[in-house]
């Protein structure tokens, strides 16, 4: 064991009260950082998760056709009144190739074709305006986790089968196995058997979505083998906008991302993160001041010992390293204890604050990275906070210390 470590450990061990105080301060500081970050991170994850439960991260559509006015001949003026023609052809061209290319794009986890349009769903005399969503069940579930939200029946959409939300089922008085009529404004209609009821956590989606097979939707919406959009899920949700723009530029399709359509949520999350960083900064500052002041007091108390060490051949650099090691040890031990305490606090809080169904209201997001960062911050803080006291110790004049007894 190096001499500096030997002396630093002994000083820490023998100054029990001080060491306990300084360790408690660092531990609580690290625990607060871990707990708050886990809590805020957990809340943000949940918010994002809930927001994205019923929408894809990225959507690619056929771009809108914008009518152009031909330039008038030279020397003439033109007053043009442009009326947009109704969009008949809405299908994405060459969608199979585009879909394959989207799936191969780095950062994209899954992509699915979508044929959607408006229709009326009716049973007996009751009807509701709905959104037909023609999907490939497997790839659609990979983009929007819906199979797990099926409350009754099964997640199966083949031929004349459909899946509807629980709210629509209530409105139309439908149960699994009942038949439902879907009719478009153009007059095409078909009958579908309800195979399952889903509850995706959004009232609007539960009321409006009718999931049918891709082929059925293409027939009903007169898309003749085409699709209206490609929907994709990405690995890092905050990369969605960048990927959407890149995909839009590459395919020539209009692109959209959840980040654009949920700008307010994103702004809210950003300000929440900013306040979290502020809290962490002040906690780190408080921990640093705590370590520096206790080590500072310790240097003053130990000035006699430092003088003796220097008089008996210990170099200035060695004395400095002794106090830096003390700060580093406090940082490391405080990080480990604080990490454990922070994790414990998080779990206790998660278990104790629940809704009437026993589900936690405060989900937490603990990751190894969080512990690593908190630990590194505390250790660096310990070293930085020890710097000034260590310098002071190193510069002590042994002759003065010894003369003063």
């Amino acid at each position: 064991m190096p001499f500096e470590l030997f002396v630093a450990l002994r000083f820490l061990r023998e100054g029990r009260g001080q060491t306990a105080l300084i360790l408690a301060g660092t531990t609580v500081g690290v625990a607060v950082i871990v707990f708050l970050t886990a809590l805020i991170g957990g809340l943000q994850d949940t918010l994002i998760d809930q927001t994205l439960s019923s929408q894809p991260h990225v959507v690619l559509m056929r771009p809108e056709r914008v009518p152009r006015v031909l330039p008038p001949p030279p020397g003439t003026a033109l007053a043009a009144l442009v009326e947009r023609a109704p969009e008949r052809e809405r299908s994405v061209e060459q969608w199979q190739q585009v879909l394959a290319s989207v799936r191969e794009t780095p950062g994209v986890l899954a992509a699915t074709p979508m044929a959607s349009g408006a229709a009326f769903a009716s049973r007996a005399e009751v009807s509701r305006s709905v959104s037909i969503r023609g999907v490939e069940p497997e790839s659609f579930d990979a983009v929007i986790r819906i199979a797990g939200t099926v409350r009754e029946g099964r997640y199966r959409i083949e031929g004349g089968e459909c899946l509807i939300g629980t709210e629509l089922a209530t409105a139309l008085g439908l149960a699994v196995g009942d038949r439902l009529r879907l009719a478009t404004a153009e007059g095409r209609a078909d009958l579908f058997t309800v195979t399952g009821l889903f509850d995706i956590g959004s009232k609007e989606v539960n009321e409006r979505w009718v999931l049918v097979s891709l082929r059925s939707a293409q027939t009903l919406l007169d898309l003749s083998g085409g699709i209206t959009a490609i929907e994709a899920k990405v690995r890092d949700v905050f990369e969605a906008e960048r990927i959407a723009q890149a995909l839009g530029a590459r395919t020539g399709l209009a692109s959209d991302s959840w980040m654009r359509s949920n700008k307010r949520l994103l702004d809210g999350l950003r300000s929440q993160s900013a306040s979290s960083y502020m809290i962490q900064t002040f906690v780190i500052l408080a921990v640093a001041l705590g370590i520096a002041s206790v080590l500072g007091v310790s240097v003053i108390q130990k000035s006699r010992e430092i003088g003796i060490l220097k008089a008996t051949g210990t170099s200035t650099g060695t004395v400095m390293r002794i106090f830096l090691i003390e700060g580093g040890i406090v940082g490391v031990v405080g990080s480990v204890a604080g990490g454990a305490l922070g994790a414990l606090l998080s779990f206790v809080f998660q278990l104790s604050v629940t809704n009437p169904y026993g589900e936690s209201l405060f989900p937490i997001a603990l990751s190894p990275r969080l512990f690593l960062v908190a630990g590194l911050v505390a250790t660096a803080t310990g070293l930085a906070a020890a710097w000034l006291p260590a310098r002071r110790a190193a510069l002590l004049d042994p002759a003065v210390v010894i003369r003063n007894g």
Partner: protein
Amino acid sequence: MAEAVLRLEGVVKDYGDGQVPTRVLHGVDLELGKGEFTALVGPSGSGKSTLLNLMGLLDRPTAGRILLAGQDTGRLDDAGLTRIRGRTVGFVFQFHHLLPEFSALENVMIPMMADKGRPDPSMAECAGHLLGQVGLSAHLHKRPGQLSGGQQQRVAIARALAMNPRIVLADEPTGNLDTHSADEVFALLRNMGVRTGVTFLVVTHDPRLADRCDRIVELVDGRIVSDRPNVKG
């Protein structure tokens, strides 16, 4: 005179802020030979401790040269001074100045560990042997707080000899002890001087103890007023 271990040439020491410096030592010349056992006496405020700090390289002179084991110490930087101090000079202070956090054995090992950078078993063996020589074999693992004043000073003597120094500087080593312990500790110092051949310089107020040294140097107002061999020593 025997080979010089320490030589002071015209050593001057001023204290103060430069505007009105106070001269504490006025051109001190002194030579201490190998194995000599010298007493430095003088009234309070005569500059004894200042002279001792300069000899021990704990402080630098304002003017003059200090040669330790033939080396001009004025040319050394702080790290060089620390190194040569650690290897050549042993200290025994009035208030023993042991580290309360460490056992007697560890206190004796400190200079060796500071020099080598890490503890090793041979150091414990050497420190144990030294503590045995000062009669503390039974107290190796006791902390300074568990030892009497005389025993603490014995540990300090063992520590001063730990690096096998060329010279041991003792500042009132018995000043804090009762007469019986003072006699014992002084006898031990004398005995260790004879056994090891190390040069000893002992600052003392006690004429009875000074009388037991080979040579008596008297300092008054920062000047050596007498330097004589002591036949009784």
